[in-house]
């Protein structure tokens, strides 16, 4: 069977209670004009109109004595083999995993098993995130982090329960983990079905086009905002200490606009790189002159007086999101909220376990070197690389070359001619403990 005619498979993941079932029910009940077979988690088979619901039991097959990269879902192999033997074929297959499922074996099944590889292809991994409660899991639950890392599409669900600033913070955090996924904000998993079914597989160019931040610079801070305050003394109050300290820059700006914040951001980047850091234990006065301060965090409510030389707008740039510390700006014991704010892609390893690294190079690469590099990289680092996607311009080849990988497994496809598009290499790795500089340097050695 031609690879172009393989039946698309969407893998639906999400932590417990995130809204997977709500989304799945939408897929089953809305008019989208295609026949979908749904694989659920409990055993049985239910026909719903033109759809088919089959329940699975999430069994893992170990292919090579327990190697994580070679585990596949035995139940899916059985069910898919059965589905492929039906005369009434389906247009699309949707697999719902349990909240605690590791998406790795699900995706790997379609790379490893002969029959699956030939007849089916993973169109997308869609992860539903409970925007209100994900913070309880994102630091501690490997499953939640891996579900985000594996995703091509992420639904930030239950957005009606979360303030916009918190959603911005969550989205920035998720982007730091997975810079490729398309993120949608939803309530009750309401979304146009084609947005999750017509993803088109690992479409890296699409991902980059849809997410201009993907390859944007990283910043030494996660958050910036402008406060309008009177002259005199204001106070920064923090109530939590997730880290022993947090760096901060405060500087005057001309207005409370996004443009002003963007201009101040460049100044703040330079100041954050300063070697002169002023330690500020609670009670220490912090100046608003652009100097880099390191707030030393302790127990209970901590207060730092701010010296405001004259009334106006002041921009604050913080190493972490203010909410992580319960950080507030207070004037006369009343909270002052930022008149504008932005989240930034941090350069520090806030989540050292799961990050994404994007590489873009305009020059052609050498096909042999590229193959050797990818093979060696996935062999040596495959356990830590959840997913890899790349579109390559290979010297002598008029067509795009597309690679996608899951752990140690790699699949190459022809991507059609470059045509008028500029030839370039775009690739991304999503995984644990990725060394950005090393990946960049080693890829550059593949250039022709």
């Amino acid at each position, binding site marked *: 069977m031609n690879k172009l005619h393989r039946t698309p498979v969407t893998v639906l993941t999400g932590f417990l209670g995130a809204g997977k079932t709500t989304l799945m029910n939408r897929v089953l009940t809305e008019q989208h004009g295609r026949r979908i077979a749904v694989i659920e988690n409990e*055993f*049985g*088979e239910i026909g719903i109109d033109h759809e088919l619901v089959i329940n699975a*039991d999430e*069994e*893992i*097959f*170990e*292919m*090579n*004595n*327990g190697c994580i990269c070679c585990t*596949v879902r*035995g*139940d899916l*192999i*059985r069910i898919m083999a*059965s589905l492929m*033997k*039906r*005369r009434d074929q389906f247009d699309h297959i949707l697999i719902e995993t349990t909240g605690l499922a590791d998406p790795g074996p699900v995706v790997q099944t379609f790379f490893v*098993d*002969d029959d699956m590889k030939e007849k089916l292809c993973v169109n997308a991994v869609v992860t539903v995130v409970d925007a209100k409660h994900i913070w309880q899991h994102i630091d501690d639950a490997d499953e939640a982090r891996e579900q985000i890392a594996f995703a091509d599409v992420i639904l930030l669900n239950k957005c009606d329960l979360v303030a916009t600033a918190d959603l911005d913070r969550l989205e920035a955090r998720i982007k730091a983990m997975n810079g490729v996924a398309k993120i949608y904000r939803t309530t009750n998993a309401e979304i146009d079905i084609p947005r999750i079914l017509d993803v088109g597989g690992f479409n890296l160019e699409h991902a980059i086009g849809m997410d201009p931040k993907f390859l944007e610079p990283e910043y030494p801070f996660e958050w910036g905002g402008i406060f309008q305050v009177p002259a005199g003394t204001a106070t920064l109050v923090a109530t939590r200490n997730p880290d022993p300290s947090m760096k901060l820059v405060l500087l005057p700006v001309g207005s409370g606009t996004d443009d002003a914040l963007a201009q101040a951001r460049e100044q703040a980047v330079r100041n954050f790189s300063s070697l002169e850091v002023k330690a500020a234990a609670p009670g220490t006065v912090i100046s608003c002159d652009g100097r880099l301060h390191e707030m030393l965090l302790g127990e209970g409510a901590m207060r730092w007086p701010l010296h405001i030389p004259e009334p106006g707008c002041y921009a604050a740039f913080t190493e972490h999101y203010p909410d992580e510390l319960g950080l507030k700006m207070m004037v006369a014991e009343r909270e002052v909220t930022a008149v504008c704010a932005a989240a930034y892609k941090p350069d520090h390893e806030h989540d050292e376990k799961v990050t994404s690294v994007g590489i873009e190079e305009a020059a052609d690469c050498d096909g042999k070197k590229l193959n050797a590099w990818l093979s060696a990289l996935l062999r040596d680092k495959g356990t830590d690389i959840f997913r890899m996607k790349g579109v390559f311009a290979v010297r002598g080849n008029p067509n795009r070359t597309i690679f996608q990988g899951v752990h140690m497994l790699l699949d190459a496809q022809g991507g059609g001619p470059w045509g008028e598009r500029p030839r370039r290499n775009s690739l991304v790795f999503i995984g644990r403990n990725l060394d950005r500089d090393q990946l960049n340097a080693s890829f550059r050695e593949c250039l022709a």
Partner: protein
Amino acid sequence: MSGVDTNGKGGRVTMPSASRLLAEAWTVELEDYPLDLRWSVDSRWLAAPPSHGRILVLDREGGVVASLPGHPGGNGGVAWHPQRAALATYGQDARLRVYELPAATPALEIPLEKAWADRVAWNSDGTLLAACAGRTVFIAAAASGAIEHRLSDHKSTVCDIAWNPQRPREIASVCDGGARLWRLGEARPFGHFDWGGASLIVTWSPNGRWVVTGDQTPSVHLYDVGRSHPLHIQGYEHKVKTLAWEGDGAWLGSGGSASITLWPCTGKKGPEGAKPIQLFGHLKEVVALDFVPGSSVLASGGRDGLVLLWMPHRSTDPALIVQRRTEITAARWAPDGGALAIATADGDVTLCLMNPSAAAKP
């Protein structure tokens, strides 16, 4: 193909073409993808279960003896009683049915636990029926339908089962992890082979010496039951979906690639250190193998749509090539060796009659 006719019992009949060794007698179309073909012990009737829809029992002339209701959720395996015309059918409704043919209403219906359910097998004396449901193998008394044993030491869904042809109370099961050998009445398996991967199919050699599995990782495991000695054969290109025994177990045929590999299973060590016979002729993966009972004439079916006949101890070239329109899903010799039934993915079941004057038995 010409002369299409409808026989009025759920199948369409197409009239024959001919060849020197095999003469195509008829073709019947099933409602869906043929999962398997199984002959009754007296070679009179052929059971043909499609993946979904009615299970047909056909006679040697292509007539429909019985059109049995399919199992909701999909059909699984079928199995003939070793001594009489009783057919067990099983499927994803986890209801094991036994038909005393030609009656098309079940003489026995045994509900099992709702779980993945597709394999069923009679023991060699026809007193017991085994069926898997999820991680358990259920053993039912064939006379009453009462569940007499539950074999549950499996870490995942049981993929296949096979009775010991020589000992009617011994059965092998395979799952993720490997194989278990059970002796009914004993609480634990008497053979327990966990090799770390998933085994998908299992067969017990007719002489009872070997239990052999085809694995998800492209390989075959052989267990020399008497010596409790496992062998692992690697080098296949695909997971091994078909295995077949020559005679009483002298040679093992295996698929797993476009070539057929025959392993000698005699002598103290069996295939250990031995050179196999390899048969090249298919263009794609071999998915069906069957020896003529009591003979070394082998039929192979491939995903290339070819059925090849081999006499491997005379020549490694195929003796006959039959081309079908779509990939082969099953190929079975009648026990009397006089007919080969072939099923293809488009739903066709074709019977080819052996030309007695041309057929040679080495």
